[in-house]
């Protein structure tokens, strides 16, 4: 993603990650944000918040990422995040069929409860544990001739995603395969009109409006403001 230098319009997108514990949500974020991977990543407690920019040809998208904890005891948290989200990444582990079932539950809940315009991507992670040579760029995503741990077929997940109108990817947070692609696809799928201003149901049209309307608490302010009574 080359930067042309000329300032492009920039907008923020709230994105929430959902999925069963240990499917690799935090690892996907770590790969996307820091291009890093940790073999023994500790479970997320509560939630984590990170930001990362994504440069598209015509605009810059700043992702505000809410990485939620997959452990059941944190399940109550999710509504707080997806209520406000414009995009959701629902992750399963393609070596673990139960994680796809959980993912389907999240998709159903999002369709029922989240903002109607929310962009959802279904992501099967840990592709490196399979024999797929899929996109094996250089080092390859597959483990070569080791045993194939895949338990969820691409076809099964893909046809489900198509039925529900979701974006679909298989990724490896470990090798980095397809990770940036997921976020770029989401960035591209967010309708231009819903960015910046037209974010919500009550959104208005003119593109510069929100900026002009939003009150900046950190901006210049007059600590001795006495306008009201400077007479």
């Amino acid at each position, binding site marked *: 993603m080359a930067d042309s230098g000329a300032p492009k319009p920039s907008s923020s997108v709230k994105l929430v990650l959902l999925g069963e514990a240990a499917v690799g949500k935090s690892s996907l974020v770590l790969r996307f944000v820091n291009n890093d991977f940790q073999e023994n990543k500790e479970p997320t407690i509560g939630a984590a918040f990170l930001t990362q920019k994504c440069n598209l040809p015509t605009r810059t998208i700043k992702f505000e990422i809410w990485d939620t904890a997959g452990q059941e005891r944190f399940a109550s948290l999710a509504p707080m995040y997806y209520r406000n989200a414009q995009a959701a990444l629902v992750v399963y582990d393609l070596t673990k069929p139960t994680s796809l079932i959980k993912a389907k539950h999240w998709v159903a809940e999002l369709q029922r409860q989240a903002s109607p315009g929310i962009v959802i991507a279904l992501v099967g992670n840990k592709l490196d544990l399979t024999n797929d040579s899929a996109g094996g760029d250089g080092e390859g995503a597959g483990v070569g001739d080791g045993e194939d741990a895949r338990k969820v077929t691409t076809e099964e997940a893909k046809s489900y995603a198509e039925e529900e109108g979701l974006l679909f990817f298989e990724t490896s947070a470990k090798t980095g395969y397809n990770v940036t692609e997921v976020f770029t696809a989401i960035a591209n799928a967010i309708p231009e009109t819903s960015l910046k201003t037209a974010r919500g149901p009550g959104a208005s049209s003119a593109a510069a409006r929100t900026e002009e309307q939003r009150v900046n*608490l950190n901006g210049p302010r007059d600590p001795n403001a006495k306008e009201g009574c400077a007479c």
Partner: protein
Amino acid sequence: MESLADTLWDVVICGTGLQQSLLALALSRSDKKVLHIDPNDFYGGAEAAFSLQEVESWVEKVETGKEGLFEAASVKKLGGDTGLSFPRAYSLALAPQLIHARSTLLSQLVSSRAYRQVEFLAVGSFSIFKPSPDSSQKPTLVRIPSTREDVFSTTAISAKAKRGLMKFLKFVLDYDITPQTDTWQPHADAPLTEFLLKEFKMDQELQTYIITLTLSLDGKINTRDGLAVIHRHLSSMGMYGPGFAALYPKWGGLSEIAQVSCRAGAVGGAVYMLGTGVKTMNDKDDPIVIELSSGDTIKTRKVVRANESATDRFGINRLVAVVGSSLKSLFESTVEGAPKPAVAIVAFPAGSLSTATGEASTSPVYLSVHSSDTGECPANQSVLYFTTGSEHASQDLLQQALDSFPAALSGDTVPQCLYKLQYKQLQSSAHSQANGSIFDFAPPASALAFDDSILQSVQDAWKMVLGDEAVEEEYLTFADREGAMDDDESV
């Protein structure tokens, strides 16, 4: 994984209303083990914001007496389903309070970095509803001048009245030092209206302007409190930009602040459980043993909860209406360079309305109009929040206000009312208090502007939880979390 039961919690916070949520924010950088539960299946408690579906289930709960502070709730869709958008396009606030720029809440949200997650909008003009003097004329809305420029330019008041108003505005600016204190202190407990008449020779109309700025529910605010509130209003003017004194959080007012605070708590590692309350509690033991409604039994050192039994019958009545018009004339910026306001306040002074049986109103009705920019309704609609102190005919009075209001609008197409929610919110004179290892927050106040006094209770609860570890200077003062910095900010 440590289970709920195996953990010795430092504190169990019960309820996700604003006070409890701010406490969660305050504890979010401590290493305390926090379990935050709410018997409701939504966040925000008495400060929640609801989609239309959620309103319906809430109304049902109120009617079965399960929402202690609320009663007499009802909801009505008017004109069938036409006009209304889908239920989730709405976010109706139970606590549509405006927040003055000077409020400590805002400075705490900034110092704790939580403000980054909230979008603040400007509260625009304050107006007064003037009933038509006879049937041949329409009622009107008169904007209250509250800046010097406003006072100069207004045509609504006489030159003599202007001088009186100017004198008063100047007085309020330094009302808390001598010689001003000598002027008002003898009247401290008398109604502000009397003081305005005696000391500033204000006629009833000007008195009404000033009382409206206090947002006093019964219109009988005393001089001490009234001057403090007016001072807050005037000194807030221009603080975050020209032409406005107060702010409103987008997407449902204080509900948004509560949610953002809980999220910060979650990022800090607190465990959240909705739909879970305290079934039994044994506070004789240390640690305290709690049986949760989920069936789990847990142990905790401290408990913070809210007192939700209303001891007073006094309270407010509220009518929330969704109307099918953007009510543009109410949201025009009056000062150059001012952000476009999303909220406008209208007061119906005592006497300006009469009930169906012909009785004149004895206390004011306040209306907070929210444009679709608040995210509370779709474009081309607005949400009207009417509030009045509960009296025998309050419900009727609110309906009268809703019915009379459209005629006073200039230029707009007469808005059609699409949806109506009504309820009564009770208050309590109970104070927040610590009792050994248990802290009880007072029920939330139902004033029209956010009252900073609850912030002290939150800090007291924080002190009880942290004990000796509490460092007051560091209260709610946090650095940005790594990776969460807004790198555009310095540009």
